[in-house]
Structures are given as C-alpha cells and as structure tokens.
C-alpha cells in the first residue's frame, strides 16, 4: 500500500498528532490514504479511537522501534 500523503508528527505530544491528523484529513479526498509518523506512545491508542469517533477507516498502526506508523483511509 502506498500512502497518498505522509504526515510527520515525530517529536510532538498529545494533542498535536490527533489535531494535525484531523487538519490533514480535512484537505484530502475520499478514498485517499494518509500515513502518520509519530513517537508519542499514547498515539498508538489514540489514533484508533479517533477513527472510531470520526468514522474514518483505520488500516493499521504498527510499531517500528520507538516509531509509530499509522495508516488511515478517508471515508468521508
């Protein structure tokens, strides 16, 4: 899967990765995939919850060392 865009949130703490994800998604088209890079450990739980709350689709969130990589599809 190749993401349409990548959002770098490395070094940022809650609530910034979620807010930046929202702002980035607002500028994207339905069906596009966003990759989010983050290193705030809380983001691993927060991103799936944000997707649940907003109805966006979580493809996966994976850990590579201290780095979190989240993939979401814009559904609406």
């Amino acid at each position, binding site marked *: 899967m190749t993401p349409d865009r990548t959002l770098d949130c490395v070094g940022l*703490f809650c609530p910034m990765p979620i*807010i930046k994800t*929202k702002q980035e998604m607002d500028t994207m088209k339905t069906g596009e995939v966003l990759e989010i890079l983050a290193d705030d450990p809380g983001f691993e739980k927060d991103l799936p919850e944000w997707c649940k709350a907003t109805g966006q689709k979580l493809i996966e969130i994976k850990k590579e060392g201290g780095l979190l990589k989240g993939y979401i599809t814009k559904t609406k």
Partner: protein
Amino acid sequence: MTIILFSGEMDKAIAAFTLATTAASSGMDVTIFFTFWGLNIIKKTRFTIAKPQMLMQKMFNIMSTSKLPISKLDFFGLGPWMMRKLMKKSKMASLEDLMKLAKELKVKYIACTTSCGVLGLSKGNLIDDVSEFAGAMTYLAEAKESKINLFI
C-alpha cells in the same frame, strides 16, 4: 462537550484546552464557559484595569494577571517560566498554541456575566474569540445536550 473553566492557572488551562481541541478534532461541538479565575485566561492584556472599576476590582485585576501562575510549585512566577522552558524543550504545545487551534476548530467561548460584573470586566477587556456573555442557565442548556461535561 462542555467545560466550565473556573481555574486561572496555566497548567489547568492547558489540560482544559488539550481536551477541548482533541474533542473538536474528533467532530464534537465544544463549549467552554469561563468563570471566576478562568476569566484571566481570556483577558486581552496582563493588567486589565479600567476607569469604572472600584479599587478592590482594580486590585483583583492587578493580582490576577493574564500571565498565569501554575497550580503547584509556582515560586512567585519562577515555576511558570521553568514550565514554559521545559514544555518548549520537549516540544509540547503551549497554551497559546492550543488556544489558537481551539479558535481554528471553532470551540465556542462563553464568559460568565456575573464574574465579569464582580471583577469589573467588560466585553472590551476580553479577547474577541468570546462569542457569548451569559449566565448559568445558558451553560446548563448546553450541558444538557452534551455527553461530556467537565469542571476544571
């Protein structure tokens, strides 16, 4: 979501605005009702002293500046300075950043008219982001429709 922001400390305000911006980012309508010391967060200037204020009102508006203290280890202003330094170093969002985002995310601000009256504050003393000046009933009407209601 609604928040009653009663406290005027920087750390408590950061907690409130962290939740407000996150909720607004996930599609919730967010209202913050500023009352008592919480009004210090939305004052335009550090010393909000105006002519029609009584002496005691002036004193409250000198002592409770919008340069906010923190709730623990304030050390007469050294604490907030250290906290700001640490937050900047660790790239944590500052209160100013969060308030700017809250505005972008259309968080609604209501200022309590009773507290404004007690402290001698008028519309012009508070930031323009305040959309309503109202009382407890207006807050309750919003809170009744909301699933999350916090008092900070």
